[in-house]
């Protein structure tokens, strides 16, 4: 499973990695042309075409919620509880629930490859099964201490992002932890919180986005 976790530091990738994109700077904007007198024969409007118009728009999340459809209710409740525990709000930072990270992950995994879907479904089912075995309730209903007793043994240090734990539940925990953090720190809520405090936040900042430069052919 390939994910970009923007939270992760430069230490994850050698600082001089070949992929470190040199950032070509946009050419300086030319000075506005000097005022010129209108042409003697101004063409009629319909022949000139409309002027460029750019209206303000908002992102869909501003007024709508993601419809979750991939995970079962039991799986989604476990994911939601996991999000609250793993990535809580800290000081002025929003938590995963504030960032609607579980709903986003439901969408993301719904369009991911089958092995990724299986990893998540088996992992969430596994959390519920363990919770029932030890506490006779589903994972979503565990208190903090009970949840910790299940989560902590599944956390293993990973010195290399692409080094995947061999144990399937540890693998799941590593992945969901990564994904929840990224979905949170890449959220509009996180960016807004950073803007409010005036602090540079991991990825609330803006980067160059390359537009589709040409239509994809036969893809």
């Amino acid at each position: 499973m390939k994910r970009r976790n923007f939270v992760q530091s430069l230490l994850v990738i050698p600082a001089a990695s070949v992929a470190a994109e040199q950032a070509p700077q946009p050419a300086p904007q030319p000075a506005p042309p000097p005022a010129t007198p209108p042409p003697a024969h101004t063409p009629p409007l319909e022949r000139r075409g409309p002027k460029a118009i750019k209206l303000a728009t908002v992102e869909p999340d501003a007024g709508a919620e993601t419809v979750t459809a991939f995970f079962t209710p039991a799986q989604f409740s476990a994911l939601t509880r996991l999000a609250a525990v793993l990535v809580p709000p800290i000081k002025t930072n929003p938590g995963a629930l504030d960032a609607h990270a579980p709903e986003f992950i439901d969408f993301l995994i719904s369009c991911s490859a089958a092995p990724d879907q299986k990893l998540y479904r088996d992992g969430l089912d596994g959390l519920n099964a363990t919770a029932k075995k030890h506490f006779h309730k589903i994972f979503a209903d565990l208190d903090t201490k009970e949840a910790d007793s299940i989560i902590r043994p599944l956390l293993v240090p990973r010195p290399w992002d692409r080094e995947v734990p061999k144990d399937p539940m540890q693998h799941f925990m590593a992945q969901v932890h990564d994904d929840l953090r990224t979905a949170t720190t890449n959220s509009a809520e996180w960016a807004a919180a950073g803007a409010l405090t005036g602090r540079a936040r991991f990825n609330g900042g803006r980067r160059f986005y390359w537009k589709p430069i040409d239509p994809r052919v036969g893809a």
Partner: protein
Amino acid sequence: MAIKQYDVIIVGSGHSGGMAANILTGKGISCLMLNAGPQVDLDQDRTLKAAHELPYRGFDEPGRLPHVFQADEFNANQWVDEKEVPYTHPPDAVYNWVRVRLLGGRSLFWARQSFRLSDYEFKAADIDGSGENWPISLEDLAPFYSRVEEIFRVTGRKEGWPQFPDGNFIELNAPEDSASIKQVTAAATKRGIQVSKWRTALGKDGLASSINLLLPDALATGKLDIVQNAVVREVTVDKNTGLASGVHFVDRHSKREMHVEAKVVVLAAGCLESTRLLLNSKLANSSGVMGHYLVDQMYGVNVVASVPEARDHKATSGLMGGSAFMPRFRNLSKDKKSNFIKGYCLHIDSGGTPSPNYFPLYGEELQEKVDSYTGSCLSAGIFGERVARYENHVRINKDVVDAWGIPVLHIEARDSDNEANMRKDAANTAEELFHECGWEIIAKTDEVNPPGYSIHEVGTCRMGNDPKKSVLNKWCQSHDVKNLFVVDGASFVTAGWQNPTMTILALSMRASEHLVEEMSAGNLA
């Protein structure tokens, strides 16, 4: 409209194609450059966005670029679409073929590390008994390196070390090393490891690409035409002479088939695309080694240490920051043997923030840990030389075609015990250096990225003096088809541990000047 006649067709517009166009047009030779993708407009094609403004919140679009680890949702559109131009590999041998078809190719995005190969690479067979020597030495290429370094404005520190040849550098204007870099430098020096600094192409206006350093001058001669979105499917041959007669290409959008003729064909499409084109053309492979000896560099190993005195917001610029660059230090002397041949460079960067993945924690506990360690870390990684081996190869997969019906490459490249031993040595060495400094090791792995990840794939049309063992001669000219040149990384005999860009540029410059001489002498007709 009358059909224009060209002396030379150049396939590809990256560093090697740009250099060929620059040299050839400068000598009055008319060139047609064919590039498989479109031109970019740095003002129009990029825009500043936050991750939350993107459809997948900064995650990749699932499944879009599974082999391009460098891809994210911000830059996904700059890479070649893997569905449009697929390739295949065995399930157990992942190969990361990272491609750019925009005008300027990968020269738009390279990391600008600028090193010369040394005779430890050019004459490697004499040193370690592995493979073949190059048919040229550093002495042959040095004058061309110097000219390339001037064009690309390479900055670096001269050292006088044979494994790290000096060049025509702009003097490095580096600040004084931080205390942590001084400390690790002392630890390395004590072990006989020489420590230098990165050597980097400054380029111009933040860009060191063919599109700003090479092609504008070529266009200014009036001798260069560039066609974008021209996907070359075949080099054509004159049946009477056996010489290359031109190329057959297809328009990327309309799929209109086109043919163009010229006196000489220069391939500069990138190592594997040039080789794919020749294999599909069934050309220039009397040796049978075309496609073989695919090699690149190992990028990886991650050893991270934290300096205790720098934690909890005490990472001052005097203590942390900067880098140390340790060029190859293994197997430089015949009497000091490792359990591997060849070598690697170790690069150490100071002042980083640890990945949360290093700690088996979550929630507030994790955040506190990361906050405490922020700025206190040094990380070590390597560029390691892989061995060029016959079995690491590409061939045509006739069962799979790209969006224009052109058969794709099947790529097979695996690491050997030599690579495994080398990366273990590197991880252990970095750990020992950090330990000696008294720092806490918080991450250590000898894992490396799959072959191809470095985007430094070379070989597959290697040069040599013996036409039975090589595809090209020492001028990057086909042994079999004298008016056919391959000026990208395909000619490499060994990869070295160094970023190959300076060598590709120098080889292209040298080959192009030879081409001019041969053409003037009437030897290519």
